[in-house]
C-alpha cells in the first residue's frame, strides 16, 4: 500500500481547483492507467488524507466524485474498490470538461430535456467565465422533441394517448434547462470571453427514446431512456404518465481512434451522420 501511495502523483499548489477535485483527478488517472486494477482496493481514506495533507472529508469528497462517475464502489467498513466490470460505464462530466480544453469546442446533444447536459455544462462554462478556460469558439447544438405537437412519449399511461397537459409539463422542464444553456453560452460571446459562441436548439417530431452526446465530433456517449410509469401533477390533478427516464441511464462511450475502420471510430462517425441528418431535415428552430 505504501508504494502505491508513493506512486500517486502529488497535487499542484498552483492548481486553482479544490483539493478534492485534484485528488479525484489523480485517482482517476491511476485507475485509467491501471495502476489500480479492476477489483483492487484503493488506499484508505486516512492514508490518502495523510499523503495529501488534507482533511478526511476532502478525501471523502474526492471518492464521491469517482463513485458518481461509477469508477469505484465503496463498501461500508471495507473501503473503496475499482469497479470490476471491463466494459465500464464512463462518466460524461470529465469528458465534457476535457472537451472544453480545446480551442474549438462543439457539444451536440440529442435527447429529451437537456437536464443532464445542463448539469455537465455548468462547470466548464463557469470556468470560461472565470478565465480558467479560453476556447476561441463554443458551439452547442441541442436536438429535442417538439412539445408543441402531439407526442408518442411522454403520454397518458391509461390510454397511451398524447395529452396537452403532459406536453406542457415536458415543455416546462425542457425550457428551464435549454434556456439556461443558451443564455450562458450567448453571454460568453457577449462578454467577449469566447469569440464565437453559438447555442442553437432545434426540435423534431420523433419520440425521445435515447440520448446522444457528441463531443468535439470525436467522442460519443449513448444512453437508452427506459419508459417508466409515474404519477405527476397535471393541472392540479394526479396523473399517471409514461415518461422516458434518463436519470439513471448508463452512458456508453465511444471515441475516435487512429484506426478509422475500428468499431468506435465508425460508431462516432455514424452518430455524427445521424445527428446532422436530423438537424438538417426534419427539425426546426425551437422558438419561444
Amino acid at each position: 500500500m505504501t508504494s502505491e501511495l508513493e506512486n500517486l502523483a502529488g497535487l499542484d499548489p498552483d492548481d486553482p481547483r479544490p483539493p478534492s477535485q485534484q485528488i479525484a483527478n489523480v485517482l482517476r488517472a491511476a485507475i485509467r492507467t491501471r495502476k489500480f486494477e479492476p477489483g483492487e482496493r484503493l488506499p484508505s481514506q486516512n492514508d490518502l488524507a495523510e499523503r495529501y495533507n488534507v482533511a478526511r472529508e476532502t478525501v471523502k469528497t474526492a471518492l464521491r466524485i469517482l463513485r458518481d462517475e461509477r469508477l469505484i464502489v465503496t463498501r461500508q467498513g471495507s473501503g473503496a474498490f475499482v469497479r470490476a466490470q471491463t466494459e465500464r460505464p464512463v462518466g460524461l462530466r470529465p469528458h465534457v470538461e476535457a472537451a472544453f480544453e480545446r480551442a474549438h469546442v462543439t457539444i451536440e446533444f440529442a435527447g429529451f430535456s437537456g437536464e443532464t447536459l445542463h448539469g455537465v455544462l455548468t462547470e466548464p462554462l463557469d470556468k470560461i467565465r472565470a478565465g480558467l478556460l479560453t476556447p476561441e469558439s463554443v458551439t452547442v447544438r441541442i436536438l429535442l422533441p417538439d412539445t408543441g405537437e402531439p407526442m408518442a412519449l411522454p403520454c397518458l399511461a391509461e390510454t397511451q394517448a398524447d395529452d396537452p397537459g403532459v406536453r406542457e409539463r415536458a415543455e416546462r422542464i425542457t425550457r428551464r434547462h435549454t434556456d439556461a444553456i443558451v443564455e450562458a453560452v450567448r453571454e460568453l460571446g457577449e462578454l467577449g470571453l469566447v469569440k464565437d459562441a453559438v447555442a442553437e436548439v432545434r426540435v423534431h417530431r420523433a419520440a425521445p427514446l435515447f440520448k446522444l452526446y457528441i463531443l468535439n465530433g470525436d467522442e460519443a456517449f449513448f444512453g437508452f431512456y427506459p419508459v417508466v410509469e409515474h404519477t405527476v401533477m397535471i393541472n392540479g390533478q394526479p396523473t399517471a404518465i409514461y415518461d422516458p427516464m434518463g436519470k439513471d441511464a448508463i452512458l456508453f462511450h465511444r471515441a475516435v481512434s487512429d484506426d478509422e475502420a475500428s468499431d468506435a471510430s465508425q460508431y462516432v462517425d455514424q452518430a455524427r451522420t445521424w445527428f446532422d441528418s436530423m438537424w438538417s431535415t426534419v427539425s426546426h428552430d425551437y422558438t419561444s
Partner: protein
Amino acid sequence: MNPRYSVAQVLSDTGPILLDFDGPVCAVFATLADSTVAAELRRVIDEHRVEMPAHIRGTDDPLEVLRFTATAGTHSLVVRVENALCRAELTAVDGAMPTPYAREVIVAAHEAGRRIAIVSNNSAPAIERYLASHRLARYMTATIGRAHADPSLMKPNPAPIRLAALAVDADPSRCVLVGDSTSDIEGGRAADVRTIGFANKPGKRPRLLRAGADAITEGTNGMAELAKALHHELPNSAL
C-alpha cells in the same frame, strides 16, 4: 354523521393497500350490463327448475343471484352458475370502464413503496385479465378473487381480506382496504384492517359510515383524494 378520520390520516397510519376491484379500480359491468348477466344466471337456474323469490327475480346484481344458489340449490347448480358468471366476467372486463384516478392510486402507491393487492368478489381470472390489458398487473402483489362455487366465502366474510393481508406480508391492522360497498367495510372490520369507503354513488356515504368505515372519499372522482395523498408521500412530489 362524519367519519372518524380523513383519507390522508388512514393512509399515513397504514402501509399496504387492499383494493376492492369493481368500483375502486373499474366499473366491471359498464358495457356488458350487470342486469344482462343476472338474467343469464337466472336462465341457468330456471333450467334446473329451482324456484326463485321475487327479489332474486328482480335483482340486477349477478353476485346476489350466485349467493342465492348456495342457499337454494344443489352444489352442481352452484358450480354451473359460478362457471356462467366467471365466463360473463371475463367478457365484461374487456368493456370495463376504468375508475377515474384508480390508476394514479395504484401507481403512486407503488412509487411510495407500498404493496398493493386486489381483494374482490369477482373472479380472479377476470381481474387478472383486466389488470394485464391495462398494464397494471406488475404493481400487484396478489389478486384474491372469489372462492370458486362457495359464495359464503365472499366479502363480508373476512377470510379473503385476511388472505390478502397475508399475501402482502403485513399484519391486518397495518393494511387499508378501499371498497365501495358495505360488505367491504364489514368484512374489513371483521378482518381488523382499516377501511376507506368509496362513496361513488349518491346515498352510499351514510351506508358506508354506518358499516363503520374509518374514512370516506366521495364522488365519481373520489379516488383522486387517495392519489393526491399518496403522491404527496413521494420525495419528488413537486414535479
